């Protein structure tokens, strides 16, 4: 199966909904009218794009239609798709694995899929022939360490762990040292889920970042914020506040195998421009895909393209 098919498979629900709606909207129409714009706006809002962003996108669409003197309703779909791609960036932004070890810190609110994403990333990078090490930095949630440990066994990578309740900074420090001494390519650090409005927990996170930098200057090289596609407009605040606390270099959008569309990433791009790097489309370790803005937008609007 080519990339596109796999992506499409995971996204099929997401796709169906939006595509069908857009398709329904434009077929059988003779003119582009107010009602059509309004309906497009509603499609976007229903995809969690957010009312403000949806308005903005429809405004841009309106302008383009005027500029390019478009009169055929069916062309709106392409235009809207172009807008989305323009917002998300043209190219996939890869995780740079230049340093040895490269340290990846994974952060996010409770239950979004951090630990599972770490397993998926480990699996991905291990299959590329890299040596991966995990750090069980969630010392808070009951059995979080065991959860990562089980994933480590399944994937076949080592896990650095301390006891439940211990200092996550200490785990991170040890893990960084271990990564250096064991000649590891990539160290992925798990963290406890935390709500971004809890300042003490956010400063704990900043500290983990500083400790990593102390253990290995320049680390963490990549800070991935995991977002649940089911989340609504609060994801914008999450991105902003995690960004302020630790500096986020990329987003991972999980649970796109459900019916939620994850449109909030458009609102996030509108405000913060942090690239989405991966998407999660299931609970198994191979359910991770590189986020390709072009293909993503196309898949959303049902335009086929031959895979890899």
């Amino acid at each position: 199966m080519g990339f596109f098919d796999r992506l499409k498979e995971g996204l099929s629900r997401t796709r169906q909904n939006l595509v069908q709606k857009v398709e329904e909207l434009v077929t059988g129409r003779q003119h582009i009218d107010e009602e059509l714009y309004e309906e497009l706006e509603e499609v976007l809002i229903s995809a969690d794009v957010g009312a403000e962003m949806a308005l903005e996108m429809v405004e841009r669409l309106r302008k383009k239609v005027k500029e390019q003197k478009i009169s055929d309703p069916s062309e709106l779909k392409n235009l809207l798709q172009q807008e989305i791609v323009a917002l998300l960036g043209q190219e996939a932004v890869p995780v740079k694995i230049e340093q040895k070890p490269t340290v990846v810190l994974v952060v996010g609110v409770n239950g979004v899929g951090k630990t599972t994403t770490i397993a998926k990333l480990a699996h991905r990078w291990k299959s590329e022939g890299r040596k991966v090490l995990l750090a069980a930095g969630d010392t808070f949630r009951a059995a979080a360490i065991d959860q990562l440990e089980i994933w480590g066994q399944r994937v076949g990578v080592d896990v650095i762990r301390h006891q439940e309740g211990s200092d996550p900074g200490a785990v991170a420090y040890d893990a960084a040292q271990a990564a250096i001494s064991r000649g590891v390519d990539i160290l992925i650090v798990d963290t406890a889920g935390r709500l971004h409005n809890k300042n003490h927990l956010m400063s704990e996170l900043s500290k983990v970042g500083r400790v990593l930098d102390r253990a290995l200057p320049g680390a963490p090289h990549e800070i991935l914020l995991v977002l649940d596609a089911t989340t609504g407009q609060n994801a914008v605040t999450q991105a902003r506040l995690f960004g302020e606390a630790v500096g986020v270099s990329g987003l991972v959008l999980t649970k796109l195998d459900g019916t939620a569309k994850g449109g909030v990433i458009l609102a996030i791009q509108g405000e913060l421009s942090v690239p989405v790097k991966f998407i999660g489309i299931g609970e198994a370790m191979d359910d991770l895909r590189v986020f390709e803005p072009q293909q993503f937008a196309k898949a959303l609007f049902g335009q086929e393209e031959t895979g890899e």
Partner: protein
Amino acid sequence: MAMFESLAEKLQSTFKKLRGKGKVSEADVAEAMREVRMALLAADVNLKVVKNFVAKVKERAIGQEVLDSLTPGQQVVKVVHEELVALMGGTSSKINMSQKPPTVIMLVGLQGAGKTTSVSKLALYLRKQGRKPLMAACDVYRPAAVKQLQVLGNQLDIPVFSMGTGVNPVDIARGAMENAIATGRDTLLLDTAGRLHINEELMGELKNIKSTVKPHEILLVVDAMTGQDAVNVAETFHEQLGLDGVILTKLDGDARGGAALSVKAVTGCPIKFVGLGEKAEALEPFHPDRMASRILGMGDVLTLIEKAQASMDTQMARDMEQKLRKAEFNFEDFLVQMQQMKKMGPIDQILGMLPGMGNMKALKDVQVDDKEMKHIEAIILSMTQEERQNPQLIKDSRKRRIARGSGTSVQQVNNLLKTFDQSRKLMKQFSDMRGGGKKGKNKAKGMFKMPFFK
């Protein structure tokens, strides 16, 4: 971002623009309804739910109560608020208890919603009511989910039934039932694996558990941060299982929680509990009025306005609200506030209504001390008008004069100045926090202490 600007403020400015025209027209109401729509959407209320809701509110707004009002902005907010509360239903955190024990409660929901934590919270909550809970680990899929429940059970000293991960969850549920009967536990709580509502196989598993142990209560666990998709999820779970209620989790975050409204609207099921933190105690009964204020992004300011209106003239109330929000109040306002207080009710209640303040633990045991109140009043009365407006002017010699004038000590004056300053800063922080995310200032916890609070 404008998202956090409250609806009340927006509507007030909308109507201010219209004031010159005298009477409010239907078109004005339509304009106001657009603001209501945006506010609800920003809070993640489902679009369809919003549409129905706005239609309903509009009907009432076009009726006499708003058009004839002198304060149409506030009137609209009031109507919106009332309708929201009505839609979300009454407070009903009652669990259907079976005559014949054990009562079986099953928690279901999407991945990561907070089921396991909620199971342990609910078990603790019920134990406090004198029940003997047993928790059963039916999540055999997520790595270490069984262990997680065991650890929580251990911490709370509540027994956990498990059969490892190699057994069918339906059999685990049956085993748990037998175990509860054998060990005399009167309440059985089933933790189930998170699953997508569109996963037929796993939804089928829940149906099998349901027909096997016949739960008296099936609760859907919903993350307060959920967006538009909440309706699809709730609708499907309800169709397939027949829900009895909802637990709304992670409400200690800053999501406006419009999902609460969506879920209630599509299932008709009451929201019974809310989760307010990661600790086992952080479970509370649901309050529709608080939720309505939160969805509208305005704390309980509405109640505050009403209270103030009952005792002060409207202009004064409006000014007060503005000042409290912007933390611009000075000793003069403070004095007015104190003098109005007897009419308005206890200050702890008033402060509790301010956005962000309602959740503060520190306020729970705050009490007003009459004697100290008199001292404070005396101190403020001994200040000059200039000093009341600019407390930073009050340096040593002025302090001595004020102390002498009010029959108090310099230390008492100092105390008042300090705590006044602190609480002003605190209010500033709260409004900043609401204002969309300044960080790094949670130090305020526990330091909130006015001299007359014990």
